[in-house]
């Protein structure tokens, strides 16, 4: 991910979640934010409510975002 990163994380949060949180924050925004063009979002995943998706699954699926 180009610009956005973790700006701050409490010490304990740093260990367990920061990488995942940055990724989930990105996906939350891509799929749940932004200008909505009504009736024209064709992405299959667009209706997924990310809050219900297990973070580990997301990370497994999109890990290369951070390694590339």
């Amino acid at each position, binding site marked *: 991910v180009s610009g956005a990163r*973790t*700006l701050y994380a*409490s010490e304990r*949060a740093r260990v367990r979640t920061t990488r995942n949180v940055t990724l989930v924050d*990105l996906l939350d*925004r891509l799929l749940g934010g932004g*200008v909505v063009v009504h009736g024209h*979002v064709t992405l299959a995943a667009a209706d997924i409510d990310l*809050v219900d998706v297990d973070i580990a699954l997301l990370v497994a699926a999109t890990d290369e*975002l951070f390694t590339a």
Partner: protein
Amino acid sequence: MSVLLYAIAEQGPRRIGGTGVGERPLREIAQDGLVAVVSDHERPPHTLAPAHVRAYESALERAMARGAMLPARFGSVLADDPAVNAMLADRRGELAARLEAVRGAVELSVRAFARAPAAGPHASGTEYIRARLEERRRAAAAARALRPLDALAREVCEHDAAGDSLVRRSYLVDAARIEGFAARVAQLGDELPELDLVCTGPWPPFSFAGAPRP
């Protein structure tokens, strides 16, 4: 051929260059002072493939570097240029107002997690209710604890709590105040031993692309 939408921006002398999803060239469709940043696709992408996400995000970063912009939800596809022109014309007032609101600002995300572990399986209904009440109390306390951040933001957007986070908020912050904001989060993190805080950004103003909630 259909059109994948990345962002709405103001028409300006600097064009957005390079490619977007599927290495398709980015171009602008202009309408009355606004532009839509798009790429053309025979078959628009319909998956969250990492390469797509990365290309999309990179296009947004470039659009953001150029000036005020509103990101589009990932996967927004319109039939053709006239459909884009019609959308820009129909929503001109709303889009122009939001572009004005986000000019010179970025989105920062703050999540608060409870440091104490969440309660395990519950032996009884009473215990379950008690645990739920405790969770709500913690969330309300976390929301109160984060209130000092509101003064550093132009707008605040409250998201539904997700996963194990108690509070999830987006802040629209002047680009010049990012470091000050992060420092304030760090200070709160020190002052609030019961919470773990995580602040990410700067993001394009995803949570502020529509009219603010009343």
